[in-house]
């Protein structure tokens, strides 16, 4: 059981440009896979395709297959996909439903959509709250949260659907350093304790180095490198693909260039 992309190519509706070509990628439950690449390399498109939002919600032409466990995204409907694969986007403000007066009800939005029994809704909200340690936020008005807090609530809302996989598209890119730390810590705890497979796009490679077990590099719609996180993030070609290596790698390189050994 895994999230598998096999020979995937994709182009948007009304466009002739192929945004992804020949992508093969597997995410197992319980592992964190990082994805890095320059702007416009196809990172967000890959997220949408992996989550099944493309083509189910936005159309376009998909070649190859995407399977979330045994469900093919080519035929699945959006609400079926949402229960297997959760997606967190960049902007926290647009991910909240905007119809809930309290954070608790915001997290309950997804489970209620599924028409689960009330006791099950409550259990799922409480589980998500516990996983992300956000008990002190549940009474708050979702419209009055900081960016980092709002992103945590958005994540909790997705987790309450109990997905087997999570796709995180630059979840900290629009957050201040404090918010980044808040979300980063929550993701680390989640990766350690919940049995979910995570695909995370993140240009903050320092954050990635601490989270991901494997990292893949995308350039111009193709995966050009991939392997254990430590190896990929130390790859010398990384800056050439528009990716800044983590601070320790840069430090080591700068030291080596200056002829200093950091032992």
């Amino acid at each position: 059981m895994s999230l598998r992309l096999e020979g995937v190519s994709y182009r948007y509706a009304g466009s002739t440009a192929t945004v992804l070509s020949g992508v093969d990628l597997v995410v197992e439950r319980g592992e964190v896979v990082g994805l890095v690449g320059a702007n416009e390399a196809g990172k967000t498109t890959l997220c949408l395709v992996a989550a099944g939002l493309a083509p189910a919600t936005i159309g376009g032409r998909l070649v190859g297959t995407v399977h979330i466990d045994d469900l093919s995204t080519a035929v699945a409907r959006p609400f079926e996909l949402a229960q297997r694969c959760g997606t967190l986007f960049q902007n926290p403000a647009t991910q909240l439903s905007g119809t809930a007066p309290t954070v608790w009800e915001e997290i309950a939005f997804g489970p209620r959509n599924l028409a689960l029994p009330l006791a099950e809704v409550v259990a799922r909200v409480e589980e998500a709250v516990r996983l992300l340690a956000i008990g002190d936020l549940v009474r708050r008005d979702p419209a009055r949260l900081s960016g980092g807090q709002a992103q945590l609530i958005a994540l909790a809302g997705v987790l309450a659907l109990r997905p087997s996989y999570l796709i995180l598209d630059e979840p900290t890119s629009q957050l201040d350093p404090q918010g980044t730390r808040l979300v980063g810590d929550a993701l680390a705890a989640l990766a350690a304790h919940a049995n979910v497979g995570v695909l995370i796009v993140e240009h903050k490679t320092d954050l990635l180095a601490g989270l991901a077990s494997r990292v893949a590099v995308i350039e111009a719609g193709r995966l050009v490198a991939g392997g254990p996180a430590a190896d990929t993030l130390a790859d010398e070609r990384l800056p050439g693909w528009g990716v800044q290596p983590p601070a320790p790698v840069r430090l080591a390189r700068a030291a080596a260039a200056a002829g200093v050994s950091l032992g």
Partner: protein
Amino acid sequence: MDWLSRQFSTRVIVLMPIAIAINIVLGATVQQALKLPIYLDSIGTILVGVVAGPFAGLLTGVLSNLIWGYLLPAPIGSTTIGPFAIVAGVIGLLAGVWGRLGLFRSRRGESSSIPGAVVAVILVGALAVYTYARAYASPTDFQNNTGFDPATIDQSRIFFLLILVVFVALIAVALFLRRDVGAVYAIGAGLVTGIVAAIVSAPIAAVVFGGVTGSGTDLLVAAFRAGGDSLVSATLKQGLLSDPMDKMITSFVVFFIIGNLSQRFIARFPNGERLVSTSSM
């Protein structure tokens, strides 16, 4: 039922509250901050109608006015708006029909559309002449209870001229700035929408508010009444002056918005394929 549920895809459901907010905020700003004798409170309604269909447009219009009138607190909320929900609904419904007919499609660089556009202008012009001739040149139909001699004023020419000037000016701007014959259809559709809106809203304004709305257009009503018109007649005349101008400008704005949004985005709406220029696909 399928055509109905397709008009309410998740994307349309997301667009509707945003369109409602655009209606309310622009409407309130234009009336309160800029104090102009137009409304500009149906951009969102016409946009939804055009991209999603008649029923979605109708609901957006009705909900806009009900929420504006009754569910928002006082500085924005305004009880004078609520009763016009029917008019807003009709505007959205018509916009949906225009969208279905492809009247808001971009026709950039399509010289084959020019004869059609000319015919459209003539048809719309004829309809406008007929309506204004009825409303202004023979006011007896509307002012039986005023006892005022209708022959002494012939405002029809002045007002019809004004509408025509705006109509032609907008088309000229559209052709000059965007080189797009499609704008002619959109603005023509706006003129028709405006006339219908005026006819539907006049009795409502007269019965509920005694012909006034507390906005810039009240001065016009006052002028007509000073000229001896009855309540409904005065509000209808005011409406026939304000509404077509407002809806022509609004339709032009919506046409401009659709032309400036990414074609990829527009194509995902239920009516998308009728809005995207065939030459750019």
